[in-house]
C-alpha cells in the first residue's frame, strides 16, 4: 500500500500583503515548501493549486515563477475546503501510482474584501417585478427570506446546536473566541495576535447575533504549500528528510448528503461527522489519541458544533467539553492553538494547507513558544459551504 508523507510544508505570514499578488504569495510558499523538503521542482510529478477569487489557472501562473517542467496541473476550487482538496488531489496522484512526489498549494488575497456571501441580485432600477431564477424571485431574497451572509449562516448553525442540546449562549460563544485570540498571541504568522477580554469581544460590533466582529474569521492574504511523497520514495531520501517527514494517516474529502433541512440552512454537521468517522477508520486511531486539533472556526459559533462533529466529545457534549477547559492549549485536547481562523486569518484557499502546516509544526517539535509538548498525532479539518469537508490525520515520524 502507498503510504503518504508530508516532506516539506510552509505557510506565509497571513495578513495584508499590499504590494504582492496571489502569484507572488503562492510562489513564496511553494519555494519554501520545496526547500523545507530538500527537493526541487524537478522532483515533482504533479501540481494541484487552489485559488477562488483570482483570475483562474493559478497553477500554471505559479509554474512560470518557480519552474515549468510540463507536469500535470490540477486547478481546484472547493469553497473553504479548496486547500485540503488540492492536497488530496496530489495525494490521490501518488496513491494511484502516477507520481511519487507532488506539490499542493493554496493562495488567496482577501484583505479588505469585507462581508462574504450577502447581496445576491440587486433590485432593478427599471422598477418592474419580474420573476427570475430557480425560485422565480422578483427581487433579491437576501435579507428578505433569511440571510445569505456567512456570519449569519454560521450563527444559525451554532444557535441550532444550542436549541438542540442547551447551554450555548452568547457568552459561551464569545468565550470560544477569547480562547482562540489568546492562542494567537504565540503565533508570529497570525494576521492578528492581540488578546481580547471577554468583555471586549461581547462589546464589539455585532455582525450577526451572536457573532460579534472578533468572533468572525479574519479576511486576509496568505498562501500555504506542501510537498507530499510516497513512503517508498521517502525511504530513498536522507535520514534527516525521513526524520522530519510527517505521516498522512488519513486523507478524507466528503460532500453533504441530503438531509431534510439542508436546502434552507447548509448542513455542516453530517459531512463533517462522515469525514471524521472515515478518517479515524483510515488512521486506525480514535479522538482520544489526538494531541491537537486545528478545526474550521470560521465563526465562534462553528467551532462549538465541530467539537461534537469530530468526536472530541460525546454527542451533545460540546458545551461541557469547552467549559472543562479541554480545548485551551494547556487543556486535555488543545484546539486551534494557531489562533484559528478568527485571529490567524482565513485566506480561503490557503486555509486547508495552513492548518496542516500548524499540525506538522508541532509533530516535528518545531513550533517554538506555542509547541504542544510531546505531540505525536494531530487532526486538521476544513469545511466549505456548498458543501465540502476535508479531514486529515497526521502522525509524527517514528524514524
Amino acid at each position, binding site marked *: 500500500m502507498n503510504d503518504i508523507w508530508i516532506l516539506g510544508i510552509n505557510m506565509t505570514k497571513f495578513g495584508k500583503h499590499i504590494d504582492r499578488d496571489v502569484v507572488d504569495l503562492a510562489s513564496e510558499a511553494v519555494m519554501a515548501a520545496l526547500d523545507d523538503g530538500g527537493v526541487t521542482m524537478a522532483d515533482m510529478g504533479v501540481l494541484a493549486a487552489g485559488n477562488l477569487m483570482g483570475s483562474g489557472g493559478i497553477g500554471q501562473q505559479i509554474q512560470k515563477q518557480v519552474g515549468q517542467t510540463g507536469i500535470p496541473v490540477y486547478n481546484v476550487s472547493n469553497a473553504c475546503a479548496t486547500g485540503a482538496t488540492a492536497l488530496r488531489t496530489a495525494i490521490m496522484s501518488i496513491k494511484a501510482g502516477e507520481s511519487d512526489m507532488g506539490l499542493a498549494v493554496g493562495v488567496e488575497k482577501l484583505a479588505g474584501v469585507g462581508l462574504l456571501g450577502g447581496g445576491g441580485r440587486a433590485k432593478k432600477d427599471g422598477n418592474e417585478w419580474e420573476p427570475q431564477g430557480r425560485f422565480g424571485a422578483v427581487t433579491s431574497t437576501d*435579507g428578505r427570506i433569511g440571510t445569505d451572509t456567512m456570519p449569519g449562516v454560521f450563527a444559525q448553525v451554532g444557535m441550532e446546536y444550542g436549541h438542540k442540546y442547551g447551554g450555548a449562549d452568547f457568552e459561551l460563544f464569545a468565550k470560544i473566541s477569547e480562547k482562540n485570540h489568546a492562542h494567537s498571541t504565540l503565533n508570529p504568522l497570525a494576521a492578528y495576535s492581540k488578546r481580547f477580554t471577554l468583555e471586549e469581544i461581547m462589546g464589539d460590533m455585532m455582525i450577526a447575533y451572536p457573532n460579534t466582529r472578533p468572533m468572525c474569521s479574519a479576511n486576509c492574504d496568505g498562501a500555504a504549500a506542501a510537498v507530499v511523497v510516497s513512503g517508498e520514495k521517502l525511504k530513498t531520501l536522507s535520514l534527516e528528510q525521513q526524520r522530519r517527514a510527517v505521516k498522512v494517516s488519513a486523507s478524507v474529502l466528503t460532500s453533504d448528503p441530503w438531509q431534510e433541512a439542508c436546502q434552507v440552512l447548509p448542513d455542516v454537521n453530517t459531512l463533517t461527522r462522515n469525514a471524521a468517522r472515515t478518517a479515524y477508520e483510515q488512521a486506525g486511531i480514535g479522538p482520544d489519541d489526538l494531541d491537537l486539533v486545528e478545526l474550521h472556526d470560521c465563526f465562534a459559533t462553528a467551532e462549538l458544533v465541530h467539537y461534537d462533529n469530530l468526536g472530541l466529545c460525546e454527542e451533545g457534549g460540546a458545551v461541557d467539553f469547552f467549559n472543562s477547559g479541554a480545548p485551551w492549549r494547556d487543556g486535555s485536547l488543545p484546539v486551534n492553538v494557531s489562533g484559528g481562523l478568527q485571529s490567524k486569518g482565513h485566506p480561503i484557499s490557503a486555509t486547508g494547507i495552513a492548518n496542516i502546516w500548524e499540525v506538522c509544526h508541532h509533530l516535528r517539535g518545531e513550533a517554538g513558544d506555542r509547541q504542544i509538548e510531546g505531540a505525536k498525532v494531530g487532526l486538521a479539518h476544513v469545511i466549505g459551504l456548498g458543501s465540502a469537508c476535508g479531514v486529515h490525520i497526521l502522525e509524527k515520524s517514528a524514524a
Partner: protein
Amino acid sequence: MGTFAPMADTTTPSRVPLVEYLVLDDDEPHLIANECTNCGARFFDRRNACASCFHTDFHQVKISTRGQLRTFTIVAFAAPGVEVPFVSGVIDCDGTSVRGNLRNVEPDADHVHTGMELQLTTYSLGTDDHGTEAIGFAFEPA
C-alpha cells in the same frame, strides 16, 4: 393583512409573490413545495431528480403555515440595500424546514428565542411602474 384592490387591466396581475413557492390565494396565503412521490423529500425549487432518492416524480404540497423557531440569527451587518437589523431563522413547519425572516417582533435576543411558536404572515414589498404589487412572506409570533 389588508385587502388588495384588483387592477382594472385584467391582463396584468395585480399582485405577484416574492417567490414562486409563495401562493397568495385569497385570504389564506401559504407556501408550497415539490414533494418527491417516492420518499417524501420536499424542495422549494425544481429538481431534475430527488436529491434524497433520485426518483423523478414530484407533486405539489401545501406547507403548514404554523411552525416553531428552530434557530435564528439577528443580522446587524449586511450587503448594501438590505435593511438591518432583521431576524433570519429556520422554522420547523410541521416537519418541513422553512427559511424566513421574523416580523412583528423586536429584533433582539430578549424577544426572539428558539422554540417560539410562529405563523406565516405576508407584507407588501411595494408597487412597480405597472401597478403590480409584490408580496413577501415572513413569520410572526403566533
